[in-house]
């Protein structure tokens, strides 16, 4: 039989580029025959080809059918075939591969082999395929191999043992004393492997490894192997939080490494451990240490290597919570990173920026972030890069906007000195965001408008701009139009209408034809704002009451009476109800004015020099109390009135027996509630339903006990309903 070698197969795939699939299928057919061959050479080649095809041709061929043959090749007497077999096993076996049960003796034999290469291959394989059963059966073998004559085997055994610990935790107890001895192995590779394993173990349970500190410290001071030093330092990072004295002892060697090493990996590990190991919070020299770390990290950010920048920013973010001032000293360079062409770097820099905002730099930082949202033509022409396409990604833009708002609003706007500026920013964001953030912006505008009296006049003024913006209204159906800000615009215009320059004009904007396209909650506010502004404006006419004023009032009222009709056809009940309400109010006023006018014409009323009383009645409806912001903790400042006991019963609890019963019922209500909640999701609906469930249960109880009187049952029903409403609100 003529067989292809692996090389033939690879060549074949390359020459059959056009019908690769067909070629591979044919080869697989051959392989199926070959693996059944009695010739071990043919079998081994077949397995190596199969492994290649299944792992690299990205076709997702399954080779689990060949698992038994893989084990056959693993047990071959020839080294190279054995290696092929193990390699195939590492790439194709899973924890549930059934032939793994057959490998125990094979592994035992190979691990005991006199050929260290065979032992190595078996160890490599074992690391991948070990199951809890294998771990249990081979644990003793591996532990005794810790004293193998060859360091090549010892170092591998150490690492494979760690895998065994994970599968068979008992193995740790059995082998730890031996493992610990290996810290003093004459071969540095073995020591490195042990440190590696202890590092992993200590991360999970540092307490158990504190006793090794002296030995580890010795290695730290004597080793010059950077890979080992990294591990040792990482390991100490896990130990120091438990033993602060350790941190003091570590400071000199770590400081030395930070100052002297040229290996970025070691430098980074030292800095990382200094931060995460709590060495910056020790007092004494720790501030100068922190400054040294931050300065080193600055050199990372200044480097042209983008990887250094990325990692430097990651590390700075870890120092930020404890040393915000140190980090913000390097604001200049961090800010430069938010303009970096690489989005991963930008996002890391943004994390930092958000953390170091203060009163002084807030405006500047927000300005720089806003620049990311503007189209490239508007950006700084001196920037020497073309903005990457990610600037247009909605997720990125939304992220930037979220950060801007977070920066500005955090700690009750403590970073904002000029609220007029912030309102302008929010309005700008409405236009440039390009993503759906309208609700968030509206909420912010409202919040600032209500809380900050000094900025109100400006706020009202700028809200007029939004309300009168025809484009905004026209595009309100687009998802990124952010027309939701009109909610805030209308509300603020209504509530603070005394600042309006021209109330009538504002009213007209609120009833212009396109507004019915707005979302219903915005329309509801529009309707209400119309009435509020009207009330204010009409009342202001009273002070200069003359015929002109009267005519104007009649005319506008008539107009409004007609116009608000357009809201009454809205499908939303809230909008509809408000529309009908205010139309009725306008009708009444209009009728009143007309009546008076007629009276006047007939010449039998001489009191017409006074405005109708109804006008003066309007403002108190809306402006009687000013809305004032209340601090979240304000309630605490109100002393509890004398004699009020908040823990006292309002109603005495019912007698004992009733209580027991109702507890039982509570459970059944819980069930009924859960059921209805799952079904309709409507709390009010489920409330009613819950009550019926309770009632049914009562009847059943009644029947069961038989002797309960009618009154008793009624009382119970009341109790149940009360409990229900207490539990789930009415």
């Amino acid at each position: 039989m003529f067989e292809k070698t692996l090389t033939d197969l690879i060549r074949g795939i390359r020459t059959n580029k056009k019908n690769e699939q067909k070629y591979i299928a044919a080869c697989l057919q051959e392989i199926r025959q070959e693996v059944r061959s009695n010739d071990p050479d043919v079998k081994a080649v077949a397995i190596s080809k199969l492994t290649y095809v299944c792992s690299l041709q990205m076709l997702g061929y399954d080779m689990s059918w060949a698992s038994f043959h893989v084990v056959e090749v693993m047990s071959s007497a020839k080294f190279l075939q054995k290696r092929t077999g193990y390699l195939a096993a590492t790439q194709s076996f899973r924890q549930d591969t059934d032939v793994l049960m057959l490998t125990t003796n094979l592994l035992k034999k190979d691990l005991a082999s006199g050929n260290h290469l065979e032992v190595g291959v078996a160890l490599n394989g074992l690391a991948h395929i070990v199951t809890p059963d294998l771990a249990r059966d081979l644990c003793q073998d591996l532990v005794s191999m810790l004293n193998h004559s060859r360091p090549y085997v010892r170092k591998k055994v150490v690492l494979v043992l760690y895998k065994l610990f994970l599968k068979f935790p008992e193995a740790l107890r059995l082998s730890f004393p031996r493992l610990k001895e290996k810290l003093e192995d004459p071969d540095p590779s073995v020591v490195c492997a042990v440190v590696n394993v202890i590092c992993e173990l200590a991360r999970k349970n540092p307490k158990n490894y504190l006793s090794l500190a002296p030995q580890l410290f010795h290695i730290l001071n004597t080793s010059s192997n950077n890979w080992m030093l990294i591990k040792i330092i990482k390991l100490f990072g896990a130990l120091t939080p438990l033993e602060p004295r350790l941190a003091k002892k570590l400071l000199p060697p770590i400081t030395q490494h930070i100052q002297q090493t040229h290996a970025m990996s070691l430098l980074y590990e030292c800095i990382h451990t200094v931060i995460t190991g709590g060495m910056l919070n020790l007092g004494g020299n720790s501030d100068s240490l922190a400054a040294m770390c931050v300065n080193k990290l600055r050199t990372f950010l200044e480097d042209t290597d983008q990887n250094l920048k990325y990692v430097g920013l990651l590390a700075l973010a870890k120092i930020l919570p404890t040393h915000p001032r140190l980090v913000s000293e390097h604001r200049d360079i961090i800010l430069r990173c938010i303009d970096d062409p690489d989005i991963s770097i930008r996002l890391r820099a943004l994390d930092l920026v958000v953390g170091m905002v203060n009163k002084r730099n807030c405006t500047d930082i927000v300005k720089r972030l806003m620049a990311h949202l503007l189209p490239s033509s508007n950006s700084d022409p001196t920037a020497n890069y073309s903005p990457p396409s990610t600037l247009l990604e909605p997720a990125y833009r939304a992220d930037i906007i979220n950060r801007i708002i977070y920066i500005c609003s955090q700690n009750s706007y403590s970073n904002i000195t000029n609220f007029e500026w912030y309102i302008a920013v929010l309005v700008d964001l409405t236009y440039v965001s390009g993503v759906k953030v309208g609700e968030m912006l509206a909420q912010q505008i409202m919040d600032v408008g209500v809380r900050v009296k000094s900025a109100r006049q400006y706020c009202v003024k700028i809200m007029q701009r939004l309300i009168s913006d025809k484009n905004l209204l026209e595009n309100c159906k687009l998802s990124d139009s952010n027309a939701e800000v009109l909610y805030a615009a209308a509300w603020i215009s209504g509530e603070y209408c005394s600042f309006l320059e021209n109330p009538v004009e504002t009213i007209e904007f609120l009833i212009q034809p396109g507004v019915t396209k707005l979302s219903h909650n915005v329309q509801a506010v529009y309707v209400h704002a119309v009435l509020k502004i009207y009330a204010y404006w009409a009342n202001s006419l009273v002070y200069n009451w003359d015929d002109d004023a009267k005519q104007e009032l009649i005319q506008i009222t008539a107009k409004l009476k007609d116009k608000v009709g357009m809201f009454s056809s809205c499908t939303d009940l809230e909008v509809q109800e408000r529309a009908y309400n205010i139309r009725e109010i306008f009708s009444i006023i209009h009728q009143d004015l007309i009546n008076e006018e007629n009276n006047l014409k007939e010449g039998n009323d001489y009191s017409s020099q006074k405005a109708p009383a109804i006008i003066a009645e309007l403002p108190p409806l809306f402006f009687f109390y000013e809305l004032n912001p209340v601090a979240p903790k304000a309630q605490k400042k109100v002393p509890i009135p004398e004699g009020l006991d908040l823990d006292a019963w309002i109603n005495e609890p019912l007698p004992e027996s009733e209580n027991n019963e109702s507890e039982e019922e509570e459970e059944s209500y819980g069930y009924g509630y859960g059921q209805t909640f799952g079904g309709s999701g409507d709390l009010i609906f489920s409330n009613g339903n819950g009550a019926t469930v309770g009632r049914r249960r009562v009847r059943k109880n009644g029947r069961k006990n038989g002797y309960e009187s009618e009154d008793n049952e009624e009382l119970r029903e009341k109790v149940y309903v009360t409990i229900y409403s207490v539990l789930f609100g009415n």
Partner: protein
Amino acid sequence: MLKFFLLVNKQGQTRFSRYYNTQIQPEERVLMEAEISRKCLKRGDSQCSIFEFRNYKLAFRRYASLFFVIGFDEEKNHFAILELVQAYVEILNTYFDNVCELDIMFNIEKVHVILEEMVLNSRIVETNKNNVLAPVLEMDKASK
């Protein structure tokens, strides 16, 4: 802890793959490798070669037409990963005497064996060039 080690060429073909986390099923690997190679290709020279991908961090280095990609978890030292890739490539280069994509394709077993000498149980076990190559050369001698 390393999660996987991939060699992907500019056409997006995987030339070598080694997984240290058996939770990633073979069917998933195919899709993942394709996605990773696209992501690596998309990253220009001005971008850093470490990025987040699903639950992993990826670090890659590009040598001519080949991307060496390592998936790892957060706590691993990022620079150490990049240095590992560098060491691996240097060792391949010594062993194959100016390694190229074809060397890797036609000597896939050797590429596996060399990596196995350096990384065991998803941890770095050896980075010394001589220590890595000695057993590999011994194996070659034994097979002759």
